[in-house]
């Protein structure tokens, strides 16, 4: 729903990384591997 969309947009960037919660090297590696069409 639009509300859910807005919630996730507030909490996470377009790659799925949280704006607020610290990340770890493993989490970052997983994030990078999921990034598609990287220019």
């Amino acid at each position, binding site marked *: 729903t639009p509300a859910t969309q807005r919630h996730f947009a507030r909490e996470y960037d377009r790659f799925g990384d949280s704006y607020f919660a610290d*990340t*770890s*090297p493993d989490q*970052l590696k997983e994030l990078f591997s999921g990034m598609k069409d990287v220019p």
Partner: protein
Amino acid sequence: MERKVSRISLVSEPSKIYFLQVFWEKELSTGFAISLTDGLSAWTGKVSEVDISREAEDMAMEKEKYIDELRRALVWEEGSADTYIFDFRKESGHFFYEKSLKDVSFRLGSVELQEVSSPDEVIRELIGHCLDCIAEQQSKNKHLQKENERLLSDWNKIQKQLEKYVSAREVLEADLYNRFVLVLNEKKAKIRSLQKLINEGQAPEKDTQNER
């Protein structure tokens, strides 16, 4: 001058070993010399290019195919599948060679051999040649062995280099991620503090309104 020395036995003396030497220049087709010895006597003879052509004609065989057969018979390497038989009539000096098939054998060629007056010279020369071949092969062997060791050493070095590289790459990757995470988490801490400010900024405004 090319030379091949082989052990043969004669049909007429199957239990005795003879040594056959074949000498030729570049190509067998241009003619060759034959030397036969039993370690006591020696006989030599020649087969000319003309003789070869004539033999091929007599056998109604293509010259190239005939020479190939000659090569297999006289200059063979171990493990040849074909069987060739030899015989020598000492009285006449007639030496001939045949190809043996299942139930039949056909004459490949023959040559008249003359007995050598000093067989010991032929024999000494033959043994000397063999010793030279052995020495040459041993020298090649030594060289190949050295080469082999060098290649193995090079391979081990580059293998270690690759291993180093693989582990260095893994270290690099881990290091980069660590650095990235530090920088990112600083930004997230900033985001959290700004969000907190915003949240607190809304609450005090409500209180002020109430007071009013």
